[in-house]
């Protein structure tokens, strides 16, 4: 296709008009934005020189062959390289030889297909621009008339207006069907009830060290130390372990009693040992970045900071409540025990929390 095939009106406006040489071409009154049309087509070297075209062909074929070789390499390395073999590759470090080989061959195979296709399209396929004219969207009047006539004919034949029983039952069926979808919404419930307000902790439950799975003695907990505890009787293999520990997780720290500023905190502690919920009151991240000199606890998710020496008051960040404290004491054998459940719901606030 050459410029001769382009319709007359799409050709570039003539630069030299009747009014004089060198004047800026002014479009006529009726069509102020004349379509300048397509620029004249220029040939690529491959269009002129057959040897260049052959060269391009060889390059494309070489890329596709490279892709084939890489695929063969992928299969070969999958079969040949043991899974635990490790090699050192300079910027990547000690990596799995299998991962490296599979990734490289797969990457090369796909990239070579793409690069070959791009090179083929750019150098050998026709690059002549073609204009395709738009057609008006509106249908022809005869077509419109026929469609309307067909519709009316169909409506008459269906007798929907005459057989009212069919029409009404059909409307009923269509109206009722979406109800089955609405019913399924019930599975969003039931409401949690009081589940959010209670944890496994209750009076007399021992505090069990998460590291050793043994009950904690008051004498085990040193000033400045950090220990995590779960309620007695909750084992990691229990079916609802995750559900329960998500509410009951505790962090145990020991402060010098004279450093505790909050009176209630002091009263609920045992010789400076305080037990706080490990669940952030913002959105419930496990929070235990404890700084033993400042007594601050930082939440890693949104940087809420709590002061454990002052009733776990929020001193920074988006959390809305102090961390709930668990009231603890010791039993006759010297083991730490809970003196009840948390007084307030642990974790993030919810609508009915109050």
């Amino acid at each position, binding site marked *: 296709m050459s410029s001769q095939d382009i319709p007359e009106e799409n050709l570039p406006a003539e630069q030299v008009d009747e009014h004089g040489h060198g004047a800026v071409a002014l479009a006529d009154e009726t069509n102020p934005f004349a379509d300048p049309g397509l620029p004249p087509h220029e*040939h690529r070297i*491959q269009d002129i020189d057959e040897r260049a075209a052959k060269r391009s062909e060889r390059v494309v074929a070489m890329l596709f062959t490279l892709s084939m070789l890489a695929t063969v390499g992928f299969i070969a390395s999958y079969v040949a390289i043991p899974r635990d073999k490790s090699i050192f590759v300079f910027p990547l470090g000690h*990596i799995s030889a299998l991962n490296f080989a599979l990734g490289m061959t797969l990457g090369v195979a796909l990239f070579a297909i793409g690069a070959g296709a791009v090179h083929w399209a750019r150098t050998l396929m026709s690059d002549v621009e073609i204009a395709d004219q738009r057609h008006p969207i509106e249908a022809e009047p005869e077509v419109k008339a026929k469609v309307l006539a067909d519709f009316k004919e169909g409506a008459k034949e269906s007798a929907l207006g005459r057989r009212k029983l069919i029409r009404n039952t059909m409307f009923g069926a269509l109206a009722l069907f979406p109800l089955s979808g609405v019913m399924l919404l019930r599975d969003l419930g039931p409401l949690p009830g009081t589940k959010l307000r209670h944890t496994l902790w209750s009076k007399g439950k021992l505090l069990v060290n998460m590291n050793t799975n043994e009950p904690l003695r008051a004498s085990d907990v040193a000033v400045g130390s950090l220990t995590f505890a779960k309620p007695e009787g909750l084992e990691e293999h229990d079916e609802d372990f995750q559900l329960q520990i998500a509410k009951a997780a505790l962090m145990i720290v020991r402060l010098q009693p004279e450093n505790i500023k909050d009176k209630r905190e002091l009263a609920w502690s045992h010789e400076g040992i305080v037990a706080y919920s490990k669940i952030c009151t913002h959105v419930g991240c496990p929070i235990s*970045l404890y700084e033993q000199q400042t007594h601050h606890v930082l939440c*890693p998710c949104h940087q809420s900071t709590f002061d454990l020496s002052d009733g776990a008051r929020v001193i920074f960040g988006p959390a809305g409540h102090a961390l709930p404290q668990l009231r603890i004491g010791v039993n006759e054998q010297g083991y730490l025990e809970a003196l009840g459940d948390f007084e307030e719901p642990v974790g993030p606030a919810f609508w009915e929390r109050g």
Partner: protein
Amino acid sequence: MKKLSARRRHPLAAVVVLLLALAATGGLYAAFAPASKAQADTTAQSLAIDEGKKLFSVGCASCHGTGGQGSSDGPSLVGVGAAAVDFQVGTGRMPAQQPGAQIARKKVIYSQAEIDQLAAYIASLGAGPTIPTKSQVSPEGADIAKGGELFRTNCAQCHNFTGKGGALTHGKFAPSLEGVDPKHIYEAMQTGPQNMPSFPDTTLSEKNKKDIIAYLNAVNGDDTESPGGLELGGLGPVSEGLFGWIFGLGALVAVAVWVAARTAKAKKS
């Protein structure tokens, strides 16, 4: 014999008998005394304490007080134990360059012998955790999987999942545990340096500490394998996402621009 018995009333006889008795007692004591080695040890120990005291007076007393009792510039060292000294001085944190949010690791100033003398002096001020032995900190025979579990429960919140470290409040940070001597990791758990809480043997047993060291050795040691490669600091989704967006998408955009921008025409315009 007659001569000897004849002289028993001699004025010097009592002196001679006394000398003989003394010599015998001394000889017997020298022959049977069990304590010759122990005596040397105590001497060496008290010598180390003396030397440590001298080093302390020069390098530490300006902040920690002349008797290690502490001052407004530094905490009391009574009862911190030899392990705390070995950690603080052995990692170069002490002597501190300047007060600040956190005293960072730097070049170690004292030799190990001097550190041991300082530690001996501080340990003499009050009982505290001792420097762990080689076998206590060796990862041999430890349970790496259990160590990983313990690390994630107790340490990962600050030091990240494989001990790469992380930020805390007001300029404080949990340092990376890469390349840290297992002995110092053990001492840090035991003594809780600076703002790190301690994990004493009563709540995290000796065996547990060994497991944690073995885990760190497996995931963060010199020969640690990273099967995927290019772990981008091991910091997790932040650095990985940033890399993906900038370099992954960036490379795609660059290739697309390159393909479209280079003309294939014979006559370049």
